[in-house]
């Protein structure tokens, strides 16, 4: 079963790549590209408007109806702004850094299934110009690991921008940011692994397919958020927010300390590219949340074409997360750096590791008829030992830390 799901690849290329397949690919890419740009633009507006509402302000309301064109106006303005080349900057890396930041942001979107015919046992394919294909750009066999790879490349944009600016605030900001992104990547990877465990596949298309049916008691959908028992979802959302450097994890641009963080020395369109990458990543990350844990575009399709319903479900689910991101920003105060590191390393990573092993034990005990009491006892024992080890290590570290301060 596992390998059958694994073998799922876009049927578009089943007979090799001919001209029609190439043209369909290009069409899909161009549509996705335009969609991403528009979605990013709207996300910026949505965030500003919503935060204004939450803070009892009006927010942008001049350009277009409800200020919806504000981002477009701002973007256009940035085209006409001067390019300032800081005198201490390392020119080549300075120019390269924005590209390292926004190209991975685009590529990340490749693996998100946007729609498809999922209702009533559909396999998520649609007919496009006489060809059967997925409504997602690419479904590489490495699947979700592609997303992890892209987000590990995105670290370079932040890191090199700060270093190449030749100024102290960007350098401090980028060192902070890259250490933070690196820290939360591990927790992210481990919670993704929980979804792989439950759905039995790494391809994002396969993940959506295995979440499409009915779940528990035919009431709840078969979403991974339920089948992984909620914890990996929470960990992934926290780690994802930290990976995006969004509030409450936005220490990178703590304006009281670091001006604007790693992109302080960037102006004009080069700044716009960083800004674009940031918000595009927010949109894509919401899409990945939905794909991994909320069944992607799957959902009932009462009337009309099923792919349209897929789009609608995907849009609704993604918007919920976008709203959540803005809500976080309006509500939560910023973390302190040590709190951030403690949360990532001492709580999220051990917890996701233990949860992964627990899920595997539970799944296997169902399959192989192990004694549930023994499995439960083993799991509880594992968590207890892990927790007490961590606790004593923490206490010791604190004591050493204090001693160092007094006796140094």
């Amino acid at each position, binding site marked *: 079963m596992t390998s059958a799901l*694994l073998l799922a690849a876009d049927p578009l290329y089943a007979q090799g790549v001919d001209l029609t397949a190439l043209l369909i690919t290009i069409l899909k890419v161009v549509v996705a590209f335009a969609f991403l740009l528009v979605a990013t633009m709207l996300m910026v507006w949505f965030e500003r408007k919503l935060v204004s509402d939450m803070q009892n302000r009006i927010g942008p309301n001049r350009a277009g109806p409800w200020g919806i064109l504000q981002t477009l106006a701002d973007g256009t303005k940035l085209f006409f702004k001067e390019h300032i080349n800081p005198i201490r900057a390392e020119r080549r890396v300075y120019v390269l850094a924005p590209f390292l930041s926004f190209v991975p942001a685009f590529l990340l979107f490749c693996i998100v299934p946007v729609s498809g015919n999922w209702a009533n046992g559909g396999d998520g394919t649609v007919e496009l110009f006489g060809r059967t294909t997925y409504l997602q750009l690419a479904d590489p066999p490495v699947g979700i*690991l592609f997303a992890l790879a892209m987000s590990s490349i995105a670290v370079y944009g932040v890191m090199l921008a700060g270093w190449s600016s030749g100024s102290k605030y960007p350098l401090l900001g980028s060192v902070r940011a890259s250490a933070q992104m690196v820290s939360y990547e591990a927790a992210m990877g481990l919670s993704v692994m929980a979804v792989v465990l439950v759905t039995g596949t790494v391809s994002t298309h396969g993940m959506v397919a295995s979440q499409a049916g009915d779940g528990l008691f035919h009431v709840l959908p078969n979403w991974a958020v339920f089948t992984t028992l909620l914890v990996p979802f929470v960990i992934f959302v926290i780690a994802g927010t930290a990976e995006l450097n969004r509030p409450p994890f936005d220490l990178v641009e703590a304006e009281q300390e670091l001006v604007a963080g790693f992109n302080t020395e960037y102006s004009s369109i080069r700044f716009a590219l960083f800004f674009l990458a940031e918000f595009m990543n927010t949109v894509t990350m919401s899409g990945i949340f939905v794909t991994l844990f909320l069944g992607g575009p799957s959902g009932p399709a009462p009337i009309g074409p099923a792919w349209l319903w897929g789009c609608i479900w995907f849009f609704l689910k993604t918007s919920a997360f976008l709203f959540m991101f803005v809500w976080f920003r309006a509500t939560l105060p910023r973390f302190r750096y040590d709190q951030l590191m403690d949360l990532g390393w001492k709580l999220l990573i051990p917890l996701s590791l233990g949860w992964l092993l627990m899920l595997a034990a539970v799944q296997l005990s169902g399959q192989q008829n192990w004694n549930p009491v023994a499995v439960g006892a083993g799991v509880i024992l594992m968590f207890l030992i892990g927790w007490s080890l961590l606790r004593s290590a923490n206490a010791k570290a604190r004591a050493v830390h204090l001693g160092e301060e007094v006796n140094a």
Partner: protein
Amino acid sequence: MLAVDTPQYLPENIFFGIIAFIMVVSALRVVTTRNVVHAALWLILVLAGVAGNFILLGNEFVAVTQVLVYIGAIVVLFLFGVMLTRAPIGADAHLDNDQRPLALVVALPLLALMGYVLWDAWKDTKITEAGPPIVASTSVLSDSIFKTYLIPFEAASVLLLAALIGAIVLARRD
């Protein structure tokens, strides 16, 4: 070691040529550039080329490992090390030293040896098929990790332990 020269594999051969060229050029730049950070960036290109070749060979899992571990972690560590101590912006005159002849003496025989071994092992073998069905390779890999190479796999965790102890020793004050 190109794939069979049939039109079917033409794209693979073209991409291999492009990737190989990029890799050779960037590998040279790694050692000739006078800026440590630039050297690290060229190294990323070399490693990305290796990942690309793995994809061409149909082993995607190894390719993604290459990106995640080497590009995403190890070069990041290099850059951290360089940036956190001293990374002068611009060229560093002291980066090069006058041991080129010695380096040549070491590098050329190594190149010859490795080249000979490769040639000897493969002669003019051509990669006939595109390997096993591309995607099944991950489960094949899992089988060999958890059955054939079980002891090395568990030993790897001890190696990681050693690495962490090394890290602690590095970071100690005394």
